[in-house]
């Protein structure tokens, strides 16, 4: 496994723990379909949360949040519908969250969480 993939995998695991600590129930990880991949699917109350995790070693190439653009958001919306269709959960309200992980390899990784980004 290449270093960047390993970093991403670690970040997603950290993010999942983080979201669980926030009181969410993780129901799916790395769900794939022909249109793309959802990093984390979770339930918070009666809302389905589709979370995108972005992991970086440093801020040299910009903040992880800056890598989530309009196209990415649109795809996450499409993917959330696909996921609901496949699991027959069409009536559920959905929300898109983004979690950033900055893991420089020294000290504790820093996590930031944005809810309902649109």
């Amino acid at each position, binding site marked *: 496994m290449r270093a960047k993939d390993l970093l991403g995998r670690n970040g997603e695991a950290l993010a999942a723990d983080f979201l669980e600590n926030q009181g969410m129930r993780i129901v799916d990880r790395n769900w794939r379909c022909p249109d793309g991949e959802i990093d984390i699917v979770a339930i918070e109350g009666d809302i389905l949360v589709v979370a995108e995790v972005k992991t970086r070693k440093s801020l040299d190439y910009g903040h992880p*949040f*800056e890598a989530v653009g309009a196209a990415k*958001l649109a795809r996450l919306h499409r993917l959330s519908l696909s996921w609901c269709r496949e699991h027959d959960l069409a009536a559920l309200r959905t929300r898109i969250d983004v979690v950033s992980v900055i893991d420089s390899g020294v000290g504790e990784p820093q996590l930031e969480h*944005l*809810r*309902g*980004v*649109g």
Partner: protein
Amino acid sequence: MGVGRSYCVALVGLNGYIVEVEADIGQTLPNFVILGLPDAALNEAKERIRSAAQNSGIPLSRRKITANLIPASLPKRGSGFDLAITMAVLRAADDIREIGGTVFIAELGLDGRLRPVRGILPAVMAAVQAGYPDVVVADANAKEASLVPGAKVRGYKTLARLAYDFGADPKDLALDYSPVDADVPADDAGHVPLMPDLCDVSGQGEARRALEVAAAGGHHMLLTGPPGAGKTMLAERLPGLLPDLADTAAMEVTAIHSLAAVQSAAVRLIRRPPFESPHHSATAAAIIGGGSGLPRPGAASRAHRGVLFLDEAPEYERRVLDALRQPLESGELVIHRSAGTAAYPARFQLVLAANPCPCGKASGKGMDCTCTAMMRRRYFGRISGPLLDRVDIQLQVERVSLADFGHAGQEEDTGTVAARVLAARERQLERLMEMGLETNSQVPGRTLRGELRLAPGTTRILDTALERGTLTARGYDRVLRLAWTLADLGHRDAPDIDHIGQALGLRQAATAT
């Protein structure tokens, strides 16, 4: 975190309006939005501000930044808002302390330096008038901004320095960075621009006299004559004869030039009357002002309180010349464009120069002239009657004779004549001040024939001319105005028969042919 607030100035023409900048940082994906009718240059501020803040050591928040410029309905243009937006955003992120009523006017470089902007003088004037005397500008603009009475101006070179003075954490700031501006000219305090001197003109006694009268009374002037007679030379020497500008006038002129300048910032008030000499291919927009969006001042406004010289006047488009009638009447130009209406002052002294005919040889006996009578008439017909009506002095300039040409160096110089002009101006001001006027050229006909009425014996030649129909009623008034100026130049309290006669000579219709 919360809402940050700072102030800036939006210029519409020469009028400035205080703009309040609000910045809010929202908890969502990174974005930067500027609200409140920004133009393209102002929208690019986002990228400049992000880079400048990053390179100054105080990176902007990685969240959604919304900057709102109030009032939202006022169109805002240009890069002068960069600094005010940055400060509001930094305040919203709690990176700096409360800003208070300070006004920020500067553009940001990507490296975090503060760059000068156009129109700083009128902007600071507006800020002071609106009750915001504390102004922060780019170092290169500080001198110009300080010209405004009552302004407390602070000039900064870099954003880092400014942020430090507003309480930013010095730990990360790039305080050592001191950019060197390549093209900022050294302070040219001792530098006096080279003015052409009247002693360069050989002979032309009549024309020199006419120029002196024009300068003394502020009269508009038309010079006709063959090529090489020295029309342009004479016109260029008119501004040198005019007295220095008083405080308010100097402020107006500097403000216009501050707005019209492309790059250089003013370091002191413009005290000498400006001279504008546009080419005859100029469009109406170039002369009276224009451009896309909000109009910028044209040659007529840049000549405010100075001289607008139109060489080869019949070669101008007729509508360009006629566009000058409004400012000649009101001293102001109001220009409408899509983004709004701008009013610029344009109280200039008009000097027109023209050849006597298209081939230029129809002077003196006109033996070599190849133009038909029709061609000649049509040539002058391009300067419309209503425009010529406002020109007090209409003079024929002949080629200089060999006898005069030999006597170079014996002519009066600009300084001598300017002293007489100044004395005449003072006499006029004494007489006209209570009517709210400054020069004889501004006196309305009603006053000339009312309060300033001359003895019937003095105006007899004029009355006869009027009766015989060789002089129009408007022409009558113009002769009287010139006569008053001649009397002022001669230290007399009122014009006598001689002055009337000379005045008639100065407006011998150059367009008789």
